[in-house]
C-alpha cells in the first residue's frame, strides 16, 4: 500500500468524473480524474511527473471517419481524434510529450468467434498505431479480457488505479513517481 498523500489525509481530494466520449486534464494536485463504464471503450491516462499535469480520455470507437461532424464536436469520442486532443490540451499547462507516463485500460472483448464485434480490439490497435507513429510507448496497461473497468488518475502522484467488474477493490495499475525531476 502506498502511503496516503497529504491531500488525501486532509480530505481535500476532489474527483472529476469523465463520461463516455469525454476527456479532462488537470494540474490540480488534489484532483482525481475518474472514468466508469469502460467496456469495449478505451481509457487512456497521460501524466507528466515534472509539471504534474495529467489527463484522462474515455474514447468509445476507433475511427472518426464514420461521423466527421461528431468528431469535430466531440473529438474524445474516437481514439484517432481523441489522443491528439488529449496530448495537445496538456501542452497548454506546460506538459511535455516525451515525459508522459501513459496508461491504458478497457477494450474488453466478447467471446466472438466471428470477429465481427471486435470493437475493443480495434480501439486498442488504433491507439498503439498512433502512439508508435509518435514514438511513444505504454507504461502500464490492462486491456482486453472479459471485464468492464473503472479507471482513476491521481494528479498529485501520477498513480493510476483500476477496478474490474466483479471485484470489490481497486488495484494499482501504475505506481506514480510524481517526485521525479
Amino acid at each position, binding site marked *: 500500500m502506498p502511503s496516503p498523500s497529504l491531500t488525501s489525509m486532509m480530505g481535500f481530494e476532489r474527483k472529476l*468524473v469523465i463520461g*463516455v*466520449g469525454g476527456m479532462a486534464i488537470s494540474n490540480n494536485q488534489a484532483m482525481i480524474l475518474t472514468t*466508469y*463504464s*469502460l*467496456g*469495449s*471503450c478505451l481509457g487512456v491516462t497521460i501524466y507528466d511527473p515534472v509539471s504534474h499535469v495529467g489527463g484522462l480520455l474515455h474514447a*468509445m*470507437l476507433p*475511427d472518426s471517419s*464514420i*461521423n466527421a461532424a*461528431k468528431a469535430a464536436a466531440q473529438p474524445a*469520442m474516437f481514439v484517432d481524434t481523441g489522443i491528439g486532443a488529449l496530448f495537445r490540451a496538456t501542452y497548454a499547462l506546460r506538459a511535455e510529450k516525451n515525459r508522459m507516463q501513459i496508461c491504458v485500460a478497457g477494450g*474488453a*472483448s*466478447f*467471446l*466472438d*468467434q*466471428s470477429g*465481427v*464485434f471486435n*470493437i*475493443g480490439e480495434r480501439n486498442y490497435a488504433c491507439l498503439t498505431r498512433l502512439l508508435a507513429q509518435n514514438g511513444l510507448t505504454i507504461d502500464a496497461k490492462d486491456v482486453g*479480457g*472479459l*471485464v*468492464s473497468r473503472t479507471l482513476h488518475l491521481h494528479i498529485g502522484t501520477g498513480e493510476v488505479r483500476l477496478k474490474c*467488474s*466483479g471485484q470489490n477493490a481497486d488495484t494499482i495499475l501504475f505506481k506514480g513517481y510524481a517526485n521525479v525531476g
Partner: protein
Amino acid sequence: MQTLDNFIKQIKMLPPAPRVLGRLLVLLNDPDGHASQIVELISFDPALTAKVLQRCNSAAFGLAGSVSNLDEAVTLLGFNAIYRLVAMSISEELLGASQAGYGIGSGELWEHSVTTAVAARVIVRKVGGEENVVFTAALLHDIGKLVLGSFLEGCRQSVLSQTGSSGLSFLEAEKTVLGVDHAEIGGRVLEEWKFPENLVSAVRHHHDPAQARPHEQLAAYVHLGDLIAHCLGQAQGFDSFAVRTQSNALEILEISPKEMDSFILETDSALKECAGLIRTTA
C-alpha cells in the same frame, strides 16, 4: 442441481406489476383499442401512475410541472411515449435491486436493461419494425437473473471457474451448474405473466436469436442491443463480457457489421437525451 420446480416457485413470487405491459402492448396494437382503456389500465396502479407523471414532468420533456393527470400526459406526449415511460417505471421497480449472485450492484441491472432497450430501439428505427415490442423485449431480456440470482449465490465459484478461461460463456456456465440459464428462465417468467409468444421467445433466445424462429428478428434486436450495452460499459458483474456473440443476428436483420459502430454512437446520444429519465449511480 436445483429442480425446475424450485425455480418456478421463485417465479411465482415475483411482483405482478409487469403483467400490465403485455396487456398494454396488445391494446396499443389493436386498431379498435380506445385511449380510455389504456389510461384505465395504467390508472389501476396509483403508484405507477405517480411515477409516470413524475417522469412526464422531468426536464427530458420540457413540460416541467405542467402535467397533472394521465389523460393530459397522453394528449401531450402520445401513447408511444407514455408506454415507454410505463415500461421504464415498472422495470425500475422490478430490476433495481442488487443481485449478489451476479456481482451486480443496486440499479446496475436496470441501467443495463434500459441501455439495451434504447440500443435495440435505435436499430429498429433504422431497420423498421414494431418499436414498442422491441423496446419491451429488450427491457425485460435479463429478467431471468432475478430468479437465478439467489441460486447463484451458493455456487458462484463453481460458475465463475467455468466461465471465460475454460471457454464457456457465463450463460453456458449457468446451464452447466444450475441446469438452466437466465434466458430460459426469463422466457418462463414472461409465459407466467401471459406475455405474447413473440416476447417470450425473444427473451428465451436473446443469446441465440436464430433459435427464436419465427420470432428471430425480435430476438436479434435484443441480442444486438445487449451487445451494445456491454460495449458502452453498462454491464457490470461477474459475467460482464463473458457473452458469446451471434453474428447471424446481423444477417437476420440484414445489417452490415460496419453499421454497428454507428449504432453504438447513436445509442450513446439517445441515452444522453433521456438521461433525465434514468437514475444514474455514477
